[in-house]
């Protein structure tokens, strides 16, 4: 597998074009239905926020996150679980080759959940470039090359089989991808 490549810097100077659409007219909101969501059973994970997540086609995978909130047990989480909506059951994931992270970016490739960087300490001051891939079918992890950016956004291109990431350039602070 190849590493990361910076493909280009965003050129954002000459931006404006004519032929802008007309403003949209307002319309009334539709009504709310209250009964179509289903609560999930309790997960084998501590309460947390900023987790990485993906739908695999058969399971909802959650990993990492931060259990902050003024308790003595605040910490970044290094565990995860997957929920099967057909079996209505959670299972714990194999141990990841990563320290606890939160607030990073996850992307589903069609076979693996890629975790791309994040924060490693409660104050958000420890930016992590670590990356790893989780394969739900085998319950198996592998490390990926570290990401070259602090990843703000990521997407997987099915056409090209590539992950595209964007974030501030470490040298200039400009948006890079």
């Amino acid at each position, binding site marked *: 597998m190849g590493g990361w490549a910076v493909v*280009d810097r*965003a*050129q*954002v100077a000459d931006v*404006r074009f*004519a*032929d*802008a*659409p*007309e*403003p*949209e007219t*307002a*319309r*009334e*909101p*539709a*009504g*709310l239905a*209250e009964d*179509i*969501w*289903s*609560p*999930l059973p*309790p*997960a084998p*994970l*501590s*309460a*947390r*926020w*900023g*987790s*990485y*997540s993906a*739908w695999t*086609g*058969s399971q*909802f*995978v*959650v990993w990492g*996150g*931060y*259990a902050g*909130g*003024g308790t003595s047990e605040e910490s970044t989480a290094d565990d995860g679980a997957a*929920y099967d*909506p057909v079996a209505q059951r959670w299972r714990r994931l194999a141990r990841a080759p990563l320290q606890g992270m939160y607030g990073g970016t996850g992307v589903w490739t069609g076979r693996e959940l890629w975790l791309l960087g994040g924060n490693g300490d409660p104050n958000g001051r420890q930016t992590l470039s670590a990356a790893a891939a989780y394969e739900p079918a085998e319950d198996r992890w592998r490390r990926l090359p570290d990401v070259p950016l602090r990843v703000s*956004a990521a*997407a997987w*291109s*099915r*056409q*090209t089989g*590539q992950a*595209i*990431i*964007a974030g501030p350039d470490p040298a200039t602070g400009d*948006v890079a991808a």
Partner: protein
Amino acid sequence: MIASGGHAFVVTTDLTLALDLRRRTAWKALPDLGWPHSLVQAPMAGWTGGGLLVAHSEAAAVFGTGSAEEGWRRVSPPPRLLSPEATLYPLSDGQQVAVDTVARAAAVFDPARSRWSAMPLETRRRAAVAAGESGAAAFFVWGGSTDANLPFGDGAMLPWESAR
């Protein structure tokens, strides 16, 4: 960021950028939508199958990437109850589900139809979410926090049949 149709898109408050993944040329700024800045503080964006959908609570447009259809065309806006916190996630068939965990609302969106539901969860931010492009469930929400960073450990799912 969205990567579909051979392109990657970055949608910001001020402009939309596109990168042709096959040619790897420079990022291209798409034509300005002309929306008042106050309305597009946090636009939602997603791939509809026919192009890039960019929307906020009062307007929406699709940018076609084909050579014959390149350019913006207006489409029906998502329901107004969605707040600027709402985000679009892809479903199958180019549909998008707009989910707002702050307003506890969700809407399945396509140019022809939208349907509303309210999540049975407390208002929250930074939840783990995932949209199901296939399978038994269309959308999941789990965890997250209050504005004071108190974490949640519960979640809910939107069954696929309900979403369609």
